[in-house]
């Protein structure tokens, strides 16, 4: 039984409860009137719902999650996005903000131009719009804070390490901004000043981490910014290795603690 306080560890095949009053959630299955665990992890109980959360697993998307993903395929009217989920996610042409105003109608021209907006290899931040019946995710970037990611570096950790928070976009005090994707993809980039954020761009563009393609030429991360980013990256990897849940405070603490070491270490 899931008890408060002491965590209840189970492994596949372990009986969680013989009481059928519970609903089976993730990581459980029913057999002979008993509820059994199918993964190894900690039993979690929400009212009458019992789930087992494994230590590590592929990203299980939920509506409203912030994710960072990479375009892997350009199709007729949509992009396939790799989000470390068990199936590739989909970003439809209709769920992005097109250049030249948020509310422009999509034309056939846009379909032709699809590769100009986002092409293979590009990184985006997005929100999960919907979980499809087969378990794949539909994404959207219809907000100024989502979109193509530019200057920065990507760190991948296990999705279970990223805490679901209200805000996944952080401007850290140390001088870098962070997108903690729920899917375990973490984007670290230099902070962009507010006036840059308001800049109207030719492409649909994000505000927090982004800069326009024009601006990449003008704005080059300074060496200090780079050092910070590199340090943050190594901190996050260190945190992930010791399996510490990631959110803005832990990252900030780790960063502060690491200051006495050189970045390389």
């Amino acid at each position: 039984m899931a008890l408060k306080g002491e965590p209840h560890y189970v492994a596949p095949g372990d009986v969680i409860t013989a009481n059928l009053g519970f609903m089976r959630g993730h990581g459980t299955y029913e057999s002979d009137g008993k509820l059994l665990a199918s993964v190894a992890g900690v039993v979690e109980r929400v009212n009458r719902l019992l789930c087992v959360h494994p230590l590590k697993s592929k990203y299980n998307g939920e509506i409203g999650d912030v994710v960072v993903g990479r375009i892997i395929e350009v199709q007729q009217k949509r992009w396939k996005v790799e989000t470390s989920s068990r199936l590739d996610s989909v970003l439809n042409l209709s769920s992005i903000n097109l250049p030249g105003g948020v509310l422009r109608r999509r034309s056939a021209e846009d379909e032709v131009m699809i590769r100009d907006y986002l092409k293979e290899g590009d990184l985006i931040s997005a929100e999960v719009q919907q979980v499809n019946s087969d378990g794949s995710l539909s994404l959207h970037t219809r907000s100024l804070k989502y979109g193509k990611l530019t200057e920065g570096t990507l760190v991948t950790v296990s999705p279970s390490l990223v805490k679901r928070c209200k805000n996944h976009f952080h401007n850290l005090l140390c001088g870098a901004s962070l997108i903690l994707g729920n899917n375990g993809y973490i984007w670290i980039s230099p902070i962009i000043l507010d006036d840059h954020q308001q800049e109207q761009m030719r492409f649909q563009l994000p505000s927090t981490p982004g800069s326009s393609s024009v601006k990449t030429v003008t704005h080059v991360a300074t060496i200090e910014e780079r050092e910070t980013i590199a340090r943050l990256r190594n901190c996050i990897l260190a945190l992930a290795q010791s399996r510490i849940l990631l959110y803005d405070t832990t990252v900030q603490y780790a960063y502060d603690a690491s200051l006495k070491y050189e970045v390389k270490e």
Partner: protein
Amino acid sequence: MADRILSDFEISYIKQGVLADMRSDGRSCRDYRSFELRSGIVSNTSGSAEIKLERTNILVGVKAEIGQPNPLNPNKGRIEFFVDCSALASPKFEGRRGEDLGRNLAHRLSDLYENSNCIDLESLSIIPGQDCWIIYVDALVLEYSGGVLDCLSIAVKGALANTKIPKLTVIGEGEEQEIEISDNPFDSTSIDTNNVPVFVSLSLIGNQFIVDASHEEEACSLCQLSVGVNHKGSICSILKEGAGSFKHRQYNEAISLASEIGVSVIEKITLTNNTAPEKML
């Protein structure tokens, strides 16, 4: 090598990082990542070693067997390389798809070993023209994330240093020669690996060569120079891979850098070999 697509912005970020001498993991262009080399891992081989460099993980097993020498070199032993890019490292290598990469890596190694005279192959001869030791060096790529050739050469060097070849006595004369293997398993010789070079790969990013590129950096570098370096800093082999080209000056800088790095890497191998022998997994 294993392709990894990056966005244009990531590439430019990495390029500028190299320019500023601050790479995305905080290293400078000349910094080598730390690696861990352990030898004597697999007990039913003549010698073995495992290397871990960040996420690259390679296991090398050496087996000495008696076989026929190459007719062109009847009084020398043979050394054969085989690299298995196993599916463990990436589903991309499943079935036979890792074979091409594996064969290429093995070819590079044998090219390096054959042409730098780093191992005294004549000492591996038993009866000239008839029998010799064949040293099978089999590498298994368990995890793959950049710097695979460098790691491979380090692990091979480590494994060879760890290799024990049983002592033999040849009985009889002329046609009727017979070989007798010593019963005592401790009665063995080892291979002198002092001269064995390692590969140092330099990747050209932007206009600069960097050492020990990470997986991401490899993906955005135009070309690599892989340089075989021995303990004296001599250059034992050079090969340029990839499409790009570079200036004369860059080349000279790269080679001198490689020679410097190579010497320090070899020092480290010798150190680990001496301090921690036979540690089991």
